[in-house]
Each structure stands twice: as C-alpha cells, then as structure tokens.
C-alpha cells in the first residue's frame, strides 16, 4: 500500500527536480493528447520545444522568446515578492494596463516633439501608473482590512474600461479616420522602445527584466527587507516578534509588483505593441502568476519559467500553423504544465513509502 509521510524538512532535491519532472510529464501526456487528436506526437512536441530554439527559423524565434518572455518575467518577479510574504496581488493585468496608458500618455503629450528625455519620462510614468493602481488594494487593505485578492482582481476590469476609453477618446489617433487606437509609438522615434541591437529582440523591457531578476535575488538573500518578506510568509507570528511592520510590508510588496507590472506595460506599448488599443492587454498579468509559481517564487527560477512559457506560446503557434493543432489543445498543454508542477509539489513536502497494509 502506498502512503504519504510528511517530511520533517521540505526536500531540496525534489524542490529543484519537480519543475523538470513536470515538464517531462507534460511532454508525455501532451504527446498522448496530440496523438489522440490524430497528430504526430513526437513532431508536435519537437515543434513546440525544439523548433523555436534550434529549427530552421530559429534566428527569428529566439529574439521573439525575449520579446514574449520579458514582460512575463518582469511582472512575475514583482508578484513573487508579495506571494512570498502571503500578499496576493492577482491584478497585475490591471497594473500592466494602467502603466501602459500612463506611459503612452506621457509620450504622446510631447508628440511630435523629439527629445532624449521623453522615453525616460515615459518609463517613470509607466512605473508610477502601475504603482498607483496597486496602491488602491494596498491602502484599502491596510486601512480597512479588505481582501487584496478581490480588490486587485476587480480593478483589472476597471482598467480594461479605462483602456477602452483611452483607445476611443483621449488617446485616439487624430489621423485614424475615427477608428479606435492611439498613434503608433513605433513611428515616433523619441518614444519608440526599439531593439537595442536591431533584430535581437533586446529592447529596454528585456534589460529591465534582467535587472529585476538580479535586484530580487539580492533583495531576498542579502537584504533585511528580503528577510522580512520571507519570514512573514513562513512564520507570520515570528515576523511580528521580529519587529516586521505588516502594513509597511503590504504597501511595499504591492507597490513594487505594481510598479514592475506598469513598467512591463510601458515597455510593451512603446515597443512590440506600438499602440494603445482596446485589446492591448493579452493576459500577461495573469500568465505571470503561473510563471511566478512555475519558477518557485525564486528569481532565477522565474527567469527560466518565463522563458519556458514563452517557448510554449511561440512553439504552440507554430504547431497550430504547421500541424493544424487547435489552440485549445495548446492551452490544455500549458495547463498540464502547471497541473503537474502543483501535483508533483507533493513530493517536496511528503515522502511516498510502500508499506504492507495492516489489518485494522
């Protein structure tokens, strides 16, 4: 009989191994799923995981991995700080939208004037916008004890309405024949977040994501605040005795995650997306939650997880186009990844033992 035995300490080995095992299990069961759909499983898995990295057109897909992964990593890093402390910001999508709107507004306010300081101002605007949007659930929680999960999530829908309003009204392209959507920032050199080296996919958002990873790593391992964050998540009572001020921590964690999500929105709107439009947000804020957990709330893990998610998106689209896989199958495949990860998490905290069944 199989039984579970709680480990005295979470297993370090399993904690590192489960993401890899989860990916392998996803490949196996995903392959089965594709086979049942009548598609060649090996080719499908190869298309998703191999082609974007080493296939014939990898020269194009590799930079795209950075473009797709950077916002995920940037947002997930911010979320992970709060998640570690038990502060649940589910509304990064909204902060991402507001960051983009504020940042784009700053840039377009200068249009068509060209100056070197416009882009830095937009970056500040993006971070401030996201920060301010995250401050709403933070302040409400600190002052009135509201649930930050609900408030931050609901504010996503408010942000979406503001996005529609921006596209239809105050940021609408005056030369757009009445159609919704702002001017394209890609055509406005001072505001364009272009590739730092043409065709490399390395725009400022990618740089910011890398800086955020290093910053979070140092913060969590070398800094008192990082210690407080970890302590609050692992032992809230002990944290209080250690003099951690919970209100301050809530404001800091939500603020940082909001600012990073806002930055991600700004880098996206000024670079790859180019314009504010009604459907500007593509779900990065929600996917980043998966990335944060897939990466074990660890900065390096998040960076790798962001790359992996980007890979399944890009590979998934290639598989749709080349093999005729339905997009729903790709979504199930991505869902499997999270499912296996969470399911295998059990092994980190429990030991599976085989025992002879005893007569009760």
């Amino acid at each position, binding site marked *: 009989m199989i039984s579970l035995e709680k480990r005295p300490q979470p297993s370090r080995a399993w904690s590192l191994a489960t993401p890899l095992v989860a990916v392998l299990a996803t490949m196996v069961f995903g392959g089965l799923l594709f086979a049942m759909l009548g598609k*060649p499983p*090996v*080719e499908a898995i*190869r298309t998703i995981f*191999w082609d974007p990295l080493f296939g014939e*057109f990898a020269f*194009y*897909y590799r930079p*795209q991995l950075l*473009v*797709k992964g950077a916002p995920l990593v940037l947002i997930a890093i911010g979320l992970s700080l709060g998640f570690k402390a038990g502060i649940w910001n589910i509304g990064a999508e909204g902060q991402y939208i507001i960051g983009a709107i504020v940042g784009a507004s700053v840039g377009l306010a200068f249009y068509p004037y060209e100056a070197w300081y416009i882009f830095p101002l937009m970056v500040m605007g993006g971070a401030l916008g996201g920060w301010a949007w995250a401050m709403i659930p933070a302040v409400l929680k600190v002052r009135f004890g509201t649930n930050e999960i609900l408030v931050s999530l609901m504010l996503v829908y408010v942000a*979406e*309405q503001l996005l*529609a*309003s921006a596209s*239809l*009204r105050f940021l609408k392209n005056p030369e757009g*024949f*009445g*159609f*919704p*959507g702002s001017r*394209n920032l*890609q055509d406005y050199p001072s505001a364009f977040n272009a590739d730092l080296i043409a065709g490399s996919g390395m725009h400022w958002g990618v740089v910011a994501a890398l800086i955020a990873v290093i910053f979070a790593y140092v913060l969590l391992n070398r800094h008192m605040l990082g210690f407080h964050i970890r302590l609050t998540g692992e032992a809230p009572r002990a944290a209080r005795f250690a003099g951690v001020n919970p209100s301050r921590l809530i404001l800091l964690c939500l603020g940082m995650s909001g600012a990073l999500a806002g930055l991600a929105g700004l880098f*996206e709107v000024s670079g*790859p*997306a*180019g*314009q504010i*439009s*009604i*459907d*500007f947000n*593509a*779900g990065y804020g929600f996917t980043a939650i998966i990335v944060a957990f897939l990466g074990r709330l660890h900065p390096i893990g998040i960076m790798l997880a962001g790359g992996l998610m980007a890979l399944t*998106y*890009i590979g998934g*689209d*290639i598989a*749709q*186009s*080349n093999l*005729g896989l*339905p*997009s*729903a199958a790709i979504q199930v495949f991505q869902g499997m990844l999270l499912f296996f990860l969470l399911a295998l998490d059990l092994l980190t905290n429990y030991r599976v033992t085989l025992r002879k069944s005893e007569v009760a």
Partner: protein
Amino acid sequence: MKLTTLLTSAAMALGLATTAMAADKTKVGFVYVGPVGDGGWTYEHDQGRKAVVEAFGDKVETVYVENVAEGPDSERVMTQMALEGADLIFTTSFGYMDPTINVAKKFPNVRFEHATGYKTAPNVSTYSARFYEGRAVQGTIAGHMTESNIVGYIGSFPIPEVVRGINSAYIHAKKVNPDVQFKIVWAFTWFDPAKEADAAKVLIEQGADVILQHTDSTAPQAAAQTAGNVITFGQASDMSEYGPKPRVSSIIDDWAPYYIARTQAVMDGTWESAMTWDGIGAGMVGIGEISDAVPADVKEAALAMKAALADGSYHAFTGPINKQDGSAWLADGETADDGTLAGMNFFVEGIEGEIPQ
C-alpha cells in the same frame, strides 16, 4: 545513434519532405482573432478557408492560427507564416492592421489581405463587407415586427463599423414604423457570451421585443428564447439553430467568393493591391433565410429591400437624413459617400443616447 536523435532526424526528414512537396502549391495563411468554433466572425472566415481548399484541392495548402492576440503576437504569427513559405496571408481582425503593414514590409513577395482596415501597401490589400446593407433589411423586419416599438441593440465597440449598422437599422425601422425607438447597450467585446447574455436580458427587461446584435456569440439568441416572444437575428453566421424563432433571419459574412478569387489571382500572377468593400450585390453579405415567424407581407418587403440593395437601385443611406443634433447630413435623394461612411462617428436624427467616447 540515440533513439531521441533518431526520432528527431526522422521527423526532420519528414518535415523537409513536406516542405519540398509544398513548393509547387500555393500556400495561404489565415490569422484568426477568435476560436474557429465561435459560431460567428472567425467561424465564417474559416468557412471561407475551407471553400478555398475545396475549390483548389491539391493546388493549395492552407494554414491557420486561431485565438491570436492583436499586437506583437499577431506580428509573430504572420512572420512565421511568411517564413514557412506562405504566398498569401489573410489577417482577419481590425487590430492586425499595423502588424500586417510591418510584416508586409519585410516580405515584399508575400501578399497580405487585411480585413476591415484602412492601410494598404503594394503587397497589402484591404477588404470588408457592407454589413450595413444587411442592417437595412434587418431594420425593415424589426420595424414591422416590434409590438412594444422598442428595439434593443447590442453594440460591440463604438467604432464606425458598428455605428453605421445602428444608423442603417434605425433608418429602415423608422421608415416602416415611425414610433420605433432604439435602446443601445455597449458590450465592449466582440465575443463574450456572458456579457452578451446580460446585455440581452437588460434590453428585454426594458421592453425590447426585437434584439439586434453586433457581437458574435449566440448567447443573445438563447436569452431571447428563454424570455419568449422576442425575436433576434443571426450575426456574422446564420445561427439557424435558433430558428424559426427567436432567430427570424440573419446577416451572414460570406468570404468564400473573395478568398477564392484572391487565391486564384495569386496563382495567375494577377494579384494587385486593392481596397474591396462589397455588399449584398457581390455576395459578400448574405441574408439568412427569413423564417415563417415573419408574416408574408413583411418578408416580401424585406426581400424587396434586399433586391434593391443588391442591384444598386437603392442605397441604404439615401437622404433626406439629418444628424442626431438636427443638422442636415444628406439632402433629399442624395446618397452617402464611402469616405463619410467609412469614418462614421455620429448617430442619425431620432436615435437617443450618445456614442461613448
């Protein structure tokens, strides 16, 4: 050789073989904003794709990617199709406009067709349908059929396309029923069954017994069915599963003839950049069968309207028409020009409420 490398190289060889075989085929790509099973907008584009396959058989290879977000994702998907050797790519959502232009610059030998946009290039055409002609037929039926004199309208986004439809439906409902009133709810989505159902319920509660929709799901049809005694029209696709009532007719986007013609043009080497805006006459806008829930005389009036629009003897926007604020727009007998229609951002006189801005 390890098993994995063996498998990989076998698969690679297979991949190369299919690419080589595809060389003499014309490859046509489709980028969809929704799922092919949405029963509306994307569904009809995919029906068009299938018609291309049927028409050309072995001479054509089609590929598609569904649920593609507007912005950088769509740009990547188009680039990928172009890299993989597509000769012609249809991008089927307004939000794909700038990405289409960007990708087209990088692949001057690939032809692009962007639906509902206004930017063209030597290798980019645009195409759209005069859905407002279908709205004129719907308005005629709605005006006759309503007993409460309240027609509910579920708008998606307040863009010219949708505003044009509301105006056209209103003008023609008013023509046959001077007491008719329009109530408009903006759903701010193209496809969201839950929101659309809510919008329909709100309108029905406000007394509407006819629901027109510019959103793509069948949820409003289902809401009308539950409420009873409310009629609806299929949008983008026929939605005949809700007939004969509540769904009494529909506007169908029929992209098949256009897709086949454009594919043929690429094969013949006669493809040229163009801006196509076709209506009932060219077959791009179809009117779904008018069900028996509609009295014979109303059906006759609707079909007469359809015929007049098809042969060009009548234009859906024929003066005298005033704007909502009472200022004159079209003089008696004057018809609207395409430029004004394309950017229409005002309601005509008699419609209550504002276009959200």
